[in-house]
């Protein structure tokens, strides 16, 4: 994405999640992608379904840990977790677990709209005093940043795909819900598809 000067943002300077996720995934190469329940899953599906995507539909708080598992199992592939601020906040202890294990091939993109979008846009915790990127730094992430509409796309791509992990980018995105684009709800199918794409058959 060398010619892109900035990602789309709104009048408040907040990033627009759909074009952001589409832009990030356009550069994925052979990266393996795990998405968090709710809007992050829909954003990734809207960017185009892919056999190398695994979508969470439940299990709130676990997405980053599943990313860690894939990163341990596939050390030669970049692994990108895309999730929301609520899922990451619920699993905030996993920052310490991940930083301690220190997978160099894992990056996390948090789409931070500071609200529980799926349940009625109630205020979340990341819009007040709590900063996910500072919490990650405190847990041992050396590469963690929060960005908004002024973000340099090249810098963000480097963090997500090239910087030795674990790396975290918290992207402040506009509030509100986008149209729901739903991938398969069948978890067994999604898991089997992801494994088969990597050459594993059973069960």
């Amino acid at each position, binding site marked *: 994405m060398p010619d892109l000067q900035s990602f789309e943002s709104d009048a408040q300077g907040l990033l627009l999640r759909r074009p952001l996720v589409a832009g990030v995934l356009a550069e994925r190469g052979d990266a393996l992608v795990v998405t968090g329940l709710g809007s992050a899953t829909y954003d990734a599906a809207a960017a185009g379904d892919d056999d190398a995507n695994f979508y969470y539909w*439940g299990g709130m708080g676990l997405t980053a840990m599943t990313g860690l*598992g*894939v990163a341990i199992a596939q050390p030669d592939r970049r692994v990108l977790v895309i999730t929301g601020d609520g899922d990451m906040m619920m699993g905030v202890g996993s920052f310490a677990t991940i930083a301690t*294990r220190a997978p160099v091939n894992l990056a996390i993109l948090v789409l931070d709209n500071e609200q529980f979008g799926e349940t009625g846009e109630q205020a979340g915790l990341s819009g007040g005093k709590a900063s996910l990127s500072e919490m990650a730094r405190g847990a041992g992430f050396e590469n963690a940043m929060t960005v908004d509409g002024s973000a340099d796309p090249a810098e963000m791509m480097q963090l997500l795909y090239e910087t030795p992990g674990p790396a975290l980018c918290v992207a402040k995105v506009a509030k509100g819900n986008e149209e729901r684009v739903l991938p398969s709800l069948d978890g067994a199918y999604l898991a089997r598809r992801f494994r088969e794409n990597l050459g594993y058959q059973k069960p």
Partner: protein
Amino acid sequence: MGWSEEVLEVLNRNEVGTIATVPDAGLTGVLNLCDAAPDKEVVTLSSEEEGVGLMLGLWLGGRRGAIFMQSSGVGNCINALSVPAATRTPCVMLVTMRGQWGEFNPWQVPMGKATQPVMETMGVHCYSVEDTKDIAPAFNAACGLAFNGGFAAAVLIHQRALGTKVF
């Protein structure tokens, strides 16, 4: 050979490479053996449910793992156990029980009493063992069920097997 060595053998036989844990006293021996094994890694968790998310990721990527924890940690895993159920992926757990047999600490009793019913309600296949000689065979059976069939399976090591903790 003690049960910890036997469990390490079962881990080897089933090609389990990653052990995720919030430790317990009764698991010290087998965790130390895993730490020392060149082909194993131990991932320390901040809370047990992280292990359930980790097991899914390992399996998605073609690697096998297991969670070692105390029965109190099972309570932290309840909603997370939806994940192996919904994805029909393996989740192998080795659980040392508290609150079950002459427990001195009343705070351990409610979750100790609830551990197996809660797990079974969430779809986990449980093998409870009261004798250390049965731990490794049960763990092997749990691995077989999980890795071949895509199930969550747990071995619950009864307090009678390891002795009740006292102060």
